[in-house]
């Protein structure tokens, strides 16, 4: 009977391992969400938010200090005044004191994950949630309005001149009134939109899962041009000085004319190009899924390249003259580079 007990325990452990290993771990479900200001980098990754010194990568604080169950953070924290605004994967949105990491308040009105980062504009916090709603909160955490899309919202909205531009997994791009959340226009683009749009004075640029980069008129949502690719896109197009930069699943980087979408030049990175490229004063930096970091000047000439250990599902984020890179499944979670491609401080590895 004693042996049977051991067999039983073994069977349970084996079954648990099989079932849990199949269900996928939270840590691999997204990538570090990064933001920052002139002296601090904020990174949301797995069970915590980290505040790091920009000059040397040292830890200021982490929230929560003690890991709280299955609570996880991947959305880039938004910054307003001395506060951070960030949501977690357990349906809660937080305001934290930027200096100390202490919690100011939390908003529990959503029913799904906060995957995309919040945007702050005109004293309003715009928090997209996978429950299909964009929540607009005041600085005290009170709900001002909410807007319902047809599907999950995974990307931070953009706001400008009283208008919010919102991309959604439901294939639509929306323009909303900032004060009321009323829809101004919507545009069906033919595929799910994972990342935020980029914009210039008159246009919005988005990549869809229909393998297209689309330019949309900001005033009425009309499609101005579409660039259909043969490969998938897991990339956010970025506009700079009349050129739109993006990459595709095959590892090809494109610079296209913002006016008509015509290709100006292309470059082979060699692995899936992820997320938004970062704009430096002298060029653009692209991230490849398998850890490649590639800097090109605005005419497509190579400046430098680096390889980091791990997966890159998003491009580097420029924080006060440094490129901050969020890494998944690597030996570090955060690495920092200057615009010449040299690492500026030791890789950040969160303590358990």
């Amino acid at each position, binding site marked *: 009977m004693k042996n049977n007990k051991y067999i*039983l325990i073994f069977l349970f452990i084996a079954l648990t391992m099989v079932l849990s290993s199949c269900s996928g771990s939270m840590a*691999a*479900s997204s990538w570090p969400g990064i933001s920052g200001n002139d002296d601090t980098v904020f990174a949301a990754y797995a069970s915590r938010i980290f505040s790091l010194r920009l000059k040397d990568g040292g830890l200021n604080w982490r929230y929560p200090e003690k890991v709280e169950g299955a609570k996880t953070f991947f959305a880039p924290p938004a910054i307003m005044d001395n506060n951070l605004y960030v949501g977690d994967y357990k349906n809660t949105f937080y305001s934290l004191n930027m200096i100390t990491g202490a919690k100011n308040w939390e908003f529990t009105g959503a029913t*799904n994950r906060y995957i995309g980062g919040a945007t702050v504009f005109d004293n309003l916090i715009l928090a997209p949630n996978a429950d299909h709603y964009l929540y607009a909160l005041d600085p005290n955490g009170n709900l001002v309005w909410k807007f319902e899309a047809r599907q999950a919202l995974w990307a931070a909205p953009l706001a400008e001149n009283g208008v919010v531009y919102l991309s959604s997994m439901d*294939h639509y791009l929306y323009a909303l009134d900032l004060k009321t959340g009323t829809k101004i226009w919507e545009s069906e683009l*033919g595929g*799910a939109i994972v990342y935020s749009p980029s914009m210039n004075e008159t246009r919005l640029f988005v990549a869809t899962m229909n393998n297209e980069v689309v330019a949309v008129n900001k005033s009425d949502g009309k499609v101005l041009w579409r660039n259909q690719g043969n490969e998938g896109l897991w990339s956010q197009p970025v506009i700079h000085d009349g050129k739109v930069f993006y990459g595709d699943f095959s590892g090809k980087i494109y610079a296209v004319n913002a006016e008509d979408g015509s290709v100006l030049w292309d470059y082979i990175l060699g692995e899936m190009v992820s997320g938004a490229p970062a704009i430096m004063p002298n060029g653009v930096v692209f991230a490849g899924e398998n850890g490649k970091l590639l800097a090109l000047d605005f005419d497509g000439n190579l400046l430098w390249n680096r390889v980091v250990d791990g997966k890159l599902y998003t491009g580097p984020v420029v924080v006060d003259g440094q490129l901050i890179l969020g890494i998944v499944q690597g030996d570090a979670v955060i690495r920092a580079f200057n615009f010449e491609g040299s690492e500026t401080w030791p890789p950040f590895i969160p303590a358990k």
Partner: protein
Amino acid sequence: MWDTLIVTPFINVLLFIYDIFWNNFGIAIILFTLLIRLVTHPLMAKQIKGAQAMQEMQQDEEWKKIQEKYKNDKEKLAQEQMAYYKAKGTSPFASCLPTLIQFPIIIALYQSVIASLAATPVEVLNLSRRIYPTLLDVSKLIPLNSKFLWMDLGQPERLHLPFLSFGIPVLAIVVVITTYIQSKLIQPQSSNPKDQTAMMSNMMNLYMPFFMGYLALTLASGLSLYFLISNLAGIFQYSLLGKVNWRNVIPGRKQPVAAKALPAKSKKK
């Protein structure tokens, strides 16, 4: 290899069903689970038949005599055992082999449901790469509609009623009940109350429903739905094969006295 040859085709079949049945992921999970159960039914029938033959062998007077005769000669006993199998037209592999074949299929079914419930960016990226473009259109398919009845299949399930301040985990409760009923229904009546196999089986019957209930409570409700349909399909399959033992679940129905009177050594080799 496992992914490419087994899980990815499963995912594509599941999503194909989703695509043709009104883009309803709940219906897709139900139909896909039933389809896999249907395909593996002959294996299950073979396994049950083999297990029954093994059970009958333990009760067979002829076999008991052989065991007694050669109890001190292991080699000869093994030879006689093989001859016995041949004469009866059975084999110990008749029950093991179908189980071994079914097990990876069930794991692949489970993994394909998990992968298709993609609710986070990396999961969706991985899913989009596994879809066969010749069979399915990623742009139309993603995002999957994960709403089914009152549930979001990508989230743990709770039924919120207006007069209650908390959600009721309906699926988890139903999974516990159906797991318990299934395990009791298919448990063979033991001829001996001290039979260790039966005692172990009883322990499993007690713990397993709670274990499955815990998984149903904490994991995405799409998986709970899969557990539930699997249990119901299992009960139906066993009853189709005439192997359901209703005495085990109906309160007050005792096992026949004659069955209890069999000697304990009948289980020992």
